[in-house]
């Protein structure tokens, strides 16, 4: 049962996250590159003295990141079974109760990899990200 849902924007894309996994939302930190990063990761950043990988959400959305937006304005620090991961966002739109909208499944053919659930709220469709599934699907 999802307690609350956080709605975000990354430039012209919107998406949703269950808040249970969100550890912190911070101003976009400095991103560092490392050799031989896994595809799907954009770099790493420091969070409370630890090195945290940053997901390449643009790539996950199937787009090429515009240079100015590549890192986003904020970074969502999210927990996974493999440790913390960061997600770049441009805006934190809202945090809502699930009852404010409905959860739907994307029809086959409309699905983007791992973005098969959608939270529909006030007429707008927010793909609901499953971060655990996303990181497990990153190519090794």
């Amino acid at each position: 049962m999802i307690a609350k849902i956080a709605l975000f924007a990354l430039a012209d894309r919107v998406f949703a996250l269950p808040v249970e996994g969100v550890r912190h939302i911070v101003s976009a930190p400095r991103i560092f590159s490392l050799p031989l990063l896994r595809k799907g990761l954009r770099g790493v950043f420091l969070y409370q003295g630890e090195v945290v990988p940053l997901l390449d959400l643009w790539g996950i959305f199937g787009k090429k990141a515009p240079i100015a937006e590549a890192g986003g304005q904020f970074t969502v620090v999210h927990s996974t079974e493999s440790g913390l991961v960061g997600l770049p966002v441009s805006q934190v739109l809202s945090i809502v109760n699930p009852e404010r909208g409905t959860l739907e499944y994307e029809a086959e053919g409309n699905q983007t990899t791992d973005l098969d659930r959608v939270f529909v709220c006030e007429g707008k469709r927010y793909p609901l990200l499953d971060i655990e599934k996303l990181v497990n699907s990153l190519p090794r």
Partner: protein
Amino acid sequence: MIAFKALCACEFSRSGTSRSEGDGMMNSVRMKLVFRLGGIGFALPVQDLVEIREDPGGVLDLSASEPSTPVVGHLMHRGETIPIHDLREALGLSPSPVAEGSIVLVLDGGTGAWAVTADRVEGIFPMEEFESRPLPLLLIRREPLPYTHLDLWRDEPLVLCEARRLEHCRGVA
């Protein structure tokens, strides 16, 4: 810059101390070299470092580069010719031509001295400035990486180099 210039004249002996020409200063080798390659920062324990050649000039033989290998030239070192490797390809970094003004780090390898190029050397710093961190699980790939730890240094994660592990990058078993 003066400290770095003095450092370029240093030769790090295998006994683990450095001798600086002209000043007689002896330093304990609990220090790491910080250098940059392809925009990424690296930390190398000085016990793996034999010498830093800044602007090798005429001793850098770029004509002897070996096509389709990471060997970009050769260097005369203590009477021997040693290969100079550009680790960019092995580390998945963008290629960049090696010019005669490049910095070359001579490393202490398991099979003898060898050298790698660097874009810039930040300096040599005491171990206390570094905090070791294991690689986050999400960074680990199916093939072993040429590095297993990071060093936090002045709010920046550096790749911790070990000369023997880097040797695998250049195809030495």
